[in-house]
């Protein structure tokens, strides 16, 4: 199984409620993925202040702030927060520079999220307990997603939790399994793309990141994914300004979308949507097989 919930908020009046709404949606997805959970929040200025970048790490040392300041001299506002297995570092610097600094001071740690607007948290365990450890209820912003994992293709580790965030402000979550991920991973490695894990979903995230880096938009990237990847999937993919859903041509994995003037929401199951304000006014539909649905901020 695995559960997906995502919320793209159009009405700024709802930004303060982003985290509490997503947590309520997550409650409807917990049974689908009791092994692990991760979330991504876009636009929370408490978590990633304006003009700052955020880097999320797994396996980071206890307090890397002093070392980060040493590597990036002149930065006074380096903050470090720990949320379960995830360490979030923010600083007023370019995201790539902050990620490079983090890799320098903590080579054993893994970067699991980078962005100017995005903060990623992932860990293993009960999704609702994890939501508490991430303080999801207090999150604000314009877009967020969460994934609950029932592991099939790789081990239950924080690294194997979703979302997979491999490009700046990008996230991908997956319900299903890819059958030709090893072949595509080899091809991408041949092009010089590095991988963190043997996880099938990471391959999709790297593929989409490569398409976006090539200049494709989100919709085109997901069409290209559909041409290359074999397997079962419902994907929710988010970027600095986008929110997109796609299912494979057989569409065994569930997905339901609600499109409301104030928000767009996607979930594996209806019960995650039932908690949203004004649902009865929303257009509710199930994405058709192989069709890409994309919304832009």
């Amino acid at each position: 199984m695995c559960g997906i919930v995502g919320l793209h908020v159009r009405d700024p009046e709802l930004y303060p409620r982003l985290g509490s709404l997503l947590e309520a949606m997550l409650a409807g997805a917990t049974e689908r993925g009791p092994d692990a959970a991760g979330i991504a929040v876009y636009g929370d200025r408490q978590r990633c202040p304006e003009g700052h970048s955020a880097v999320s790490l797994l396996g980071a040392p206890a307090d890397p702030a002093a070392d980060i300041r040493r590597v990036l001299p002149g930065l006074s506002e380096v903050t470090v927060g720990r949320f379960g297995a995830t360490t979030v570092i923010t600083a007023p610097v370019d995201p790539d520079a902050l990620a490079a600094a983090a890799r320098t001071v903590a080579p054993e740690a893994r970067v699991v999220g980078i962005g100017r607007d995005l903060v990623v948290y992932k860990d293993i365990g009960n999704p609702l307990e994890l939501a508490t450890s991430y303080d999801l209820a207090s999150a604000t912003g314009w877009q967020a997603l969460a994934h609950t994992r029932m592991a099939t293709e790789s081990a239950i580790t924080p690294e194997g939790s979703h979302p997979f965030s491999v490009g700046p402000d990008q996230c991908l979550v997956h319900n299903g399994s890819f059958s030709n991920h090893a072949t595509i991973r080899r091809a991408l490695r041949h092009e010089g793309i590095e991988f963190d894990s043997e996880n099938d979903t990471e391959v999709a995230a790297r593929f989409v990141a490569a398409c976006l880096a090539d200049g494709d938009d989100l919709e085109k990237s997901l069409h290209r994914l559909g041409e290359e990847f074999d397997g079962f999937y419902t994907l929710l993919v988010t970027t600095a300004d986008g929110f997109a859903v796609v299912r494979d041509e057989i569409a065994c994995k569930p997905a339901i979308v609600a499109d409301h003037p104030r928000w767009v929401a996607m979930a594996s199951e209806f019960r995650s949507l039932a908690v949203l304000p004004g649902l009865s006014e929303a257009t509710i539909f199930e994405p058709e097989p192989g069709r890409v649905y994309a919304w832009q901020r």
Partner: protein
Amino acid sequence: MAALRKSPETEADGGSTTLGEEARVIDLASSSVRELNAELHSPTARRYRVLSPRGTHAVAVGIDDDLDVHVEGDVGYYCGGMNQRGRIVVDGMAGPGLGENMMSGSIRVRGDASQSAGATARGGLLVVEGKTSMRCGISMKGVDIVVGGDVGPMSAFMAQAGRLVVCGDAADGLGDSIYEARIYVRGKVGELGADCIEKELRDEHRAELVELLTAAGMTDVAEDAGALGEFRRYGSARTLYHFTSEHAGSY
């Protein structure tokens, strides 16, 4: 047809001819779905109202009694699964696997239904007043399904027996690998699935269609000769009954 005669569908939405008892109310905001189903499996009333389902799975599964169950809201997966004799009405939407493996009785959904509605069902009548998504009637084995709107791709996949009536459109892959079920579609049909073909709609089929639409309460269509004339019939070409390696590319 035996299934239809056993199922007084016209009563399914209100139960005016049932025992006249007060409907027993079960609110899923305060009761668990297990408590609900345990009650329906050893009923102390003939009529039930189920409140606050909010997408809960397995609502009213496994009924084996002459009951009227009115669900007031949206349900999740497998609503009415394995139903025998029960008459279930859902005033809302239904998730995947609606009425899967139903044996008899009836289920009516006032809104839309998700994928695999009526999967493997052997008898009874399943009515979806709105539309359904993919694989409506997958592997149906005798159930009658009437859909007021459209059905999604791959509907009636491997359908073996029973009738599927679609008052709207049917998406691609209709009737793929179908055996002996009969399909009636009023609207547009996408690409037909493997071994599914259009067949002549003769008088006996028109009579069957009228009977099914009437049983489903869609009398406006059943009594409209023009509307009836728009229906077309689909079924099996019977070329894929037995696997041969020459057909490997067709499955």
